[in-house]
Each structure stands twice: as C-alpha cells, then as structure tokens.
C-alpha cells in the first residue's frame, strides 16, 4: 500500500442523522454532521444536547406566544454567494426599547465545507451574516473593521424567545445578550456580549427578493417596512460628488457667460426720445425711426424702452424692419408703473424700464416702426428708445443652471430624508425626532 492511500476501512461518508426525541419520540434530523451543539425538537420544544448520542434534554420551553413559523423552512437549501447552504436552525429574538417589543428572526445556514453562516430578518429586511475573522477596534461612537469606520447605531438587550432546529452553540430560550450594532451601509457590524465574551459578526444587507431567489421560495417575500439600519440608500449617487460636479459646471457656465459677454459688441445703434401726445394722435399714431445699420454677423438686437410713467401705462407696438429685404419682427412692449399707500403701507408695481432681445437678426439696414398706445387718462408722456446690437443673452445659462441645480437638490433631499429615517430608529435619532424616536415601532 502506498503512503498516499488511506486505509480501505476508512471512515464512512458522514450522513445526516435521523434520531428520535427522548421526550416525545418525534423524529429529529441532525443535518450538520456533528457541528451542532444543540438541537430543538420541533414537536415538544425540548432543547436537546446534539453532542450526546442519547440527546439529553437541556431545556424545555413553552412558545411564549403563538407559533412562530420560519419564512424559510428548515432543511431548505439555497445558493448564497456561490455556495450551497442548508437551513438547519431558526430562532426568534426580541428586544424592548421604550416599552415596545421588537422581534427579529435568525436562520442558521450550514455547508459541510464552508461551515456556518446566518441570515437575519426584521420587518422584511434581511442580512447575510458571518462571524468576524478579525477583531474590530473601538473608536469614539464607532468601530473600525478592515479599515472601514462603522457608526454606532444601537445597543440593546436581545433575548432568545423561540428556537427550532440545530445551533452550533448552546442555545437556550430566555438567554439575554447585549447586542451593539455599528453600521456602514450596506454592512452592519454587531458585537454580541454574552457573559464576558464578545462575538463579532459582520452582516450585509439583502433584499427579500434575493433571499427568495436564492432559496427558490414560493410566492413573494414580505414587503420591507421602514428603513433598516444598514439598508443601502436608494440614492446610489454620491451626493457630495453631485455637488462637486454642480459647482464645476456652474463655474464653467460663469466662465462661458463672461466669455460671451466680453465677445459681445454691445453696439448702440439708436437712441431717441419721443413725445406721446394724446391730442395729436387722433387716428394714425405710427411712425418710423431713422435707419440704422447692423454690421457683422447675425446676432441679437436689444430694444429698451424707458418712460417716466406714474400710475399709468404706455404700450408700444414695435416692428423691426429690414429695409433691404422687408423682413419684419413684430412685438409689443408695455411700460407701466403704479404705486400708492394702503393699510399695509406703501406699495408699487411695475417699472419704468422694459427690455426685449430679438435673437438672430441678420446684418443689414433696419428701422423701427412704432405705434404707441397709452392710458386714456394720460395726456402726454416722453419715452426713450435704445437699440443695441449684439448683446449677450444669459437666459439659456439660467435654464442650464436650474437644470443642474434641481436634480442635485432633489437627490440631496431624498438622501437626507432616507438617512433621517434610518437614524430615527437608532440610539442617535436626528434632533427634531428625538422626542418621537420610537413612534414607528413594530409591536406584533
């Protein structure tokens, strides 16, 4: 026989063991090939010593409330992170905070090569949990694990109140442990202190849908309610990054505006003051200005109107007409200003000035045709018209600015409200919520 060959009489393949409960005789399946310390009889709720061939009874418990049914039945196999796992144990644990009892569930998963891992479920929120292989270090109000900082979320007393199946430790109903959770979404770092020993575990948030897919469970997973401590924010975008990008773009826009402002000729081509006289304007009131020339390339034309109105209005029907082609741009502008006093004090409405920009006017010889109309109570008023060629237009930049600002604000707000919901359930609720931190508790 060569050195590399194990003896022919080698140990048989380990098999799942079928035994009977020493208390009630019900069948008990040991699925973990001896890794379990304790196993719970599904019929009579005896906690049995899984290491003892006679399954000595360690504890008998009464299900304090109605029957608790695991969402994933014991014995179910599923593929988690590429490895097959079988559900071998289930426990319900609870904690009381401000007089409200919160319940959550933990599943023991087993693979003969990879060992044990856990799933926890609270209100439809799931976590995939393994025991930490390294020790986290303490920081103020936080813990550091593998170079990442986890913020303290909650410290509470967890008591076990319902157990089923196999456990790799000595499980007892009624046992209490001090559990401290630190979060760094989507992960949660938990220290569980029993007697003097602290067991650290690291969990990663999972959606019910992922669990249902992994274990091929029928139907739909229970809807998750509220926001869980380490639930990843639906705002996947980096909020700080968005504002950095926004700032960069705003600077770019300002530079662009400055550039266009410097390049614009802003050339005055017409400056005239006219007098409107109601008495003289019976019938036809329209007239034309002198011809002015727009040189260079197709550009904007700004028409400014000024009238020292007071509690009156004047309305000017304009037409910018190309003398060479006859092409015309018709537009009407109103200048009105009203002011007075009432019970709230002085008020005013309107302005003495008006400005309008006509885009894309080709070069050529132009004149304005003006037809004024005015308040019937206004006998006479002077008005001044300024025409400037090639002015920069900034409205489009304002729209671009808003188009960038709005999503940044919306995303920031969504992120803020999600984080506020998350922390409202913690030991460190946001200030304005501190008096009502447990109002959304689950008391089933």
């Amino acid at each position, binding site marked *: 026989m060569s050195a590399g060959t194990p003896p022919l009489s080698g140990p048989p393949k380990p098999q799942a063991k079928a035994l009977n409960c020493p208390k009630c005789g019900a069948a008990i399946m040991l699925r*973990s090939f001896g890794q379990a310390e304790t196993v719970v009889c599904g019929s009579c709720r005896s906690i049995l010593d899984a290491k003892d061939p006679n399954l000595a009874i360690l504890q008998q418990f009464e299900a304090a409330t109605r029957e608790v049914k695991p969402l994933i039945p014991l014995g179910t196999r599923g593929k988690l992170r590429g490895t097959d796992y079988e559900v071998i144990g289930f426990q319900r644990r609870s904690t009381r905070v401000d007089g409200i009892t919160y319940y959550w569930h933990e599943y023991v998963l087993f693979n003969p090569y990879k060992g044990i891992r856990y799933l926890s479920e609270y209100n439809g929120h799931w976590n995939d949990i393994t025991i930490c292989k390294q020790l986290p270090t303490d920081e103020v109000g936080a813990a550091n694990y593998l170079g990442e900082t986890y913020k303290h979320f909650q410290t509470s007393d967890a008591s076990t109140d319902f157990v089923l199946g196999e456990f790799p430790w000595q499980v007892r109903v009624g046992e209490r442990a001090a559990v401290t959770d630190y979060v760094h979404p989507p992960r949660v770092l938990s220290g569980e202190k029993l007697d003097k020993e602290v067991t650290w575990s690291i969990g990663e948030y999972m959606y019910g849908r992922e669990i249902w897919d992994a274990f091929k469970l029928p139907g739909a997973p229970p809807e998750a309610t509220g926001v869980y401590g380490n639930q990843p924010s639906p705002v996947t975008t980096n909020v700080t990054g968005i504002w950095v990008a926004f700032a960069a773009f705003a600077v770019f826009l300002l530079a662009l505006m400055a550039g266009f402002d410097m390049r614009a000729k802003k050339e005055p081509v017409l400056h005239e003051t006219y007098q409107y006289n109601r008495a003289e304007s019976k019938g036809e009131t329209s007239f034309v200005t002198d011809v002015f020339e727009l040189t260079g390339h197709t550009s904007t034309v700004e028409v400014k109107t000024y009238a020292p109105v007071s509690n009156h209005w004047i309305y000017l029907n304009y037409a910018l007409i190309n003398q060479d082609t006859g092409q015309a741009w018709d537009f009407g502008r109103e200048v009105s200003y009203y002011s007075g006093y009432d019970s709230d004090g002085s008020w005013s409405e309107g302005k003495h000035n008006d400005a309008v920009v006509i885009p894309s006017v080709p070069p050529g010889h132009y004149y304005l045709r003006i037809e004024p109309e005015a308040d019937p109570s206004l006998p006479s008023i002077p008005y001044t018209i300024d025409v400037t060629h090639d002015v920069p237009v900034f409205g489009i930049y304002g729209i671009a600015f808003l188009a960038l600002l709005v999503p940044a604000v919306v995303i920031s707000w969504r992120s803020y409200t999600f984080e506020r919901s998350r922390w409202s359930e913690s030991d460190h609720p946001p200030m304005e919520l501190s008096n009502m931190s447990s109002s959304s508790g689950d008391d089933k």
Partner: protein
Amino acid sequence: MTQPVANCPNCGAKIVFRWSSSVQTVCEFCKSILVRTDVDLKKVGQVADLPPDSSPIQINTEGKYGNKAFVVVGRILYEYDQGGWNEWHVMMNDGTSAWLSDAQSEYALSASSKAQNLPAVAQVHVGQQFDWSDQRYTVSVITPAHYRGVEGELPFQYWDKTDVTFVDLRTESGKFATLDYSDPEPALYLGESVEFDDLKLKNLRSFEGW
C-alpha cells in the same frame, strides 16, 4: 523524497513517514501509537476510535498556502466545553511543518515560533497584550481543553497528555497566535486565519447528499 519505512511493532503493517521529522505516528491498521527511537518504532499506547466528526479535511488532504503546497500528515483532536476542534499537522513542500486548525469550519494556519520569555499560564488574562514578531497580539480567549485523540504523524510525542490550556490571541490585522500549555515550558504558535477557498484543498472528505 526518501520516505523512511518501518514496520508496526504491534501488527507488522508497513509504516511510512511522509515527514522526516515526525516523532510519533499512529498505525493506520491497529491504531497503535508508535514513537520513533534511534533504532526502531516503539509502541507507547493505543488510540481509541476517534469520535465521528464533521471536518471536511482528512489525512492526505492537499492544499496550498501562499505559494507553498502542503499535505495533511497528522492530526490532534481536542475537546472543550463548547465542542471539539482539529489541529491538522501539515507538511509544507519546503520541508517545514505547520498546523491547520479547523474549528467548525473556521480555519487558521500557524507554525511553531521560537519566541522566548513566554508568560506562565497563571499570568495570562483576557485582554492582555503581547508583542511577537513586530505584531501586537491581544488575548481573546483562554480555553481549557482535553486531548481526545490523534491520527497520523506528529512532530512530538503527544500520546500521554490529557488536559491542556490554550490561550488564543489575535491582532487587528487578522493574525492569530496560540500559547500551548501542554508542557511545563509553554509553546507559541503564530499564524493567521485563512479562507477555505484560498486553501484550494483537494482530496477532501465527501458528505452524503452534498
């Protein structure tokens, strides 16, 4: 590699040492515990059948640690009040030996260290810190254990021990140390926890249904 060959003084079966420095082995057939002397093998005891256990590792399991290949040549099975664990004696392809511990599928690989001035067991308490090989180790747990059985080749005589105290220490960077108080003079093992997948193990046990 030349493998020293001898015959079991009890049943005559061929005994092959895969690791030249092995001091003790167990006859695969009659379970006699055999200790090497200068001239031959001496039977010093008998191993009772080991209890069934759930380790996926067995004698002859092969694996890799970093760029070194290893083969499992021996094993010590310990028990403590929370269950049992295996220390698999592995032979590296560079001729050194190490221990692959397997406690409910938590794996760690460690090797004997030459550090001096180790603390006496009575002086050690949880939380205490020690510096070895430029690392700061913190005592995480002190475990009174019981020696349950042996298999295969071991680097020392380990057949008449019963109770032993282990002190486990960890660093923040995942390093791992064990102080072994089996003998009057404490022994130190330094290592680190390892991932099952990283060990690339071959010739594992198979489990019914998996």
